[in-house]
């Protein structure tokens, strides 16, 4: 039983990690807690639905499932489309709302605004798709039996694989490319980056694109392995914040590690507390971290 919970924890941790990356960076660079980031996951899942339905309509190779997975080429293409669409949403929100507010008003105004944005995004989904849960595919999947008695769906294996590929790619991007290094520099000190000749505004746009894409992927993977519903993102707000805070704002590795810790602790906790209280676990984690080490594991000590 323990091993099964461990496996489940890793899988749900992967989704949280992907979503937390963007949250962590925008928290550090724009210095506000973005309560609407979780809605990017919701929109990621539902955007993929649009694209997938579109491609499915062509039938043929698009509609066929690939191997043991529940999805076909159409969903794979849809993932790319979803990243683009959610990035576009994030950039629009940044340009017309968050960027404007960050220049002219106090920090907390941005947090208020993010509540409003979250509300709008979430209810737009209800408006367009309704409140009932939906699925990418109605096909049944057969679980694979792994050593130790662990049961996983093939889709879940895909989830883990995609997450690993994404995180490794991001790591390479942030350490080997000039833009990636610039992102890390801006994250530490926008002013020093500016005088070094970095166009900080352009870099911030890249941060949004990467964060939004991570969120989009997380949303699609959640939709694929669990379900699509309007509260998808909202139900992940606390886990996402817990991961970002635990890992320390502005750290890629922190967000990933934080996500894993959140996923594992949520799933392992059901061995001790009733399942219905599972959603409170990330919150308790947040309280604990903020009490003992407010800057997170990888965060910088406040001077």
């Amino acid at each position, binding site marked *: 039983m323990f091993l099964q919970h461990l496996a489940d924890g890793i899988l749900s941790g992967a989704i949280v990690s992907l979503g937390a990356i963007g949250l962590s960076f925008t928290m550090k660079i724009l210095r506000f807690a973005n309560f609407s980031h979780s809605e990017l996951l919701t929109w990621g899942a539902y955007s993929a639905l649009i694209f997938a339905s579109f491609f499915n309509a062509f039938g043929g190779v698009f509609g066929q499932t690939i191997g043991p997975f529940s999805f076909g080429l159409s969903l794979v293409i849809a993932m790319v489309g979803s990243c683009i669409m959610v990035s576009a949403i994030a950039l629009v929100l940044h340009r017309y709302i968050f960027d404007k507010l960050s220049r002219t008003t106090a920090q*907390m*105004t941005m947090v*208020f605004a993010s509540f409003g944005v979250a509300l709008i995004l979430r209810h737009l989904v209800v*408006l367009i798709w309704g409140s009932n849960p939906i699925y990418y595919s109605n096909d049944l999947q057969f679980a694979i039996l792994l050593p130790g008695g662990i049961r996983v769906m093939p889709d879940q294996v895909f989830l883990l694989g995609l997450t690993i590929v994404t995180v490794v790619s991001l790591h390479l991007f942030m350490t080997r490319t000039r833009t990636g290094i610039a992102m890390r520099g801006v994250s530490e000190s926008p002013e020093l980056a500016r005088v070094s000749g970095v166009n900080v505004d352009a870099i911030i746009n890249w941060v949004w694109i990467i964060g939004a894409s991570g969120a989009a992927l997380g949303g699609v993977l959640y939709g694929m392995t669990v379900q699509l519903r309007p509260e998808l993102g909202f139900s992940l707000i606390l886990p996402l914040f817990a991961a970002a805070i635990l890992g320390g704002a502005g750290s890629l590795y922190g967000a990933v590690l934080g996500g894993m810790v959140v996923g594992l602790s949520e799933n392992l906790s059901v061995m001790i507390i009733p399942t219905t209280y599972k959603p*409170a676990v990330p919150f308790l984690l947040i309280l604990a971290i903020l009490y003992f080490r407010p800057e997170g594991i990888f965060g910088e000590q406040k001077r």
Partner: protein
Amino acid sequence: MMIGLISYLVFFLIVSLIFSISVLGLNMQWGFTGLFNAGVAGFVAIGGYTMAILTGPSREVVFGGFELPFIIGLIGAMVMAGLGALIVGLLTLKLNHEYLAVATFGIAVTIQLVCLNWEYLTGGTLGLISIPNPSRDYVEGALAQNALFLAIVLVLGGLVFIGLERIVKSPWGRMLKAIREDETAAASLGKNPVRIRLEAFVLGCMLMGLSGALYVSFIGYVSPWDFLPILTFQAWTMLIVGGSANNRGAILGALVVWGIWTFSGFLISRVVPSDIQAQGGAIQAILIGLVLVATLLSRPRGLIGEELNVSRHARS
């Protein structure tokens, strides 16, 4: 027709004034002390459930049902909300703004989880029913009862307002303002900023508890669905639209925003075909979200406001 309109107006005033008590509490926390409480719904819930437990009739499978008088219920609600605030405050008040927002949000979610699941205490998803409404004891007929309840709310609300205005002008209140502007300077004067912030936080939450108690007493039943995060959002919108650090603005904001909310709900129910009424709720929420964001973009001070004196440059 006239009776219908008056009846509706009375109902509207009751709910918006009950709301305004919460907003006044929130104003104490944010407007006067600079504390970002994103868990308003949780403290209102504590007040509401305490009221239900203290004043409700005895029930078999559920704790409570002490059938205590209305006033005791109100006081009990405020005490429990205050206690909850004390515990939360001790754990979280040293956090900076963003983290405090996340932590208080989490608390409200947790409180709602408890309300949903701890059936012995809260009745679980079914909630608690038959909560007595004091106006029923004194007059007959729905309109008269509501009018009496409105009078009760007006009196209580008025007391709260006067009390808060007094507090704000008192030495304690001036200290509060000093802490909001510059904590280090205030601390150097020998006062304990952490303790004063805690006191403000607890006071604000007690008012939220009062609000919750009044609400459940008016409606007659309580369930976890009455205290969803959207409640927190509504309170904040009321505060922002009315202008922070301003008690009058808090009340005005409550009336205006509740007005927009109910009016839009009414319009939508007329305009939208009945088979997609659920979407009507979504339209309403989107509308309110747009109102909030638009207000923030154009006038972050709200309708009647005090300038946010602490500039971003002053923030370390």
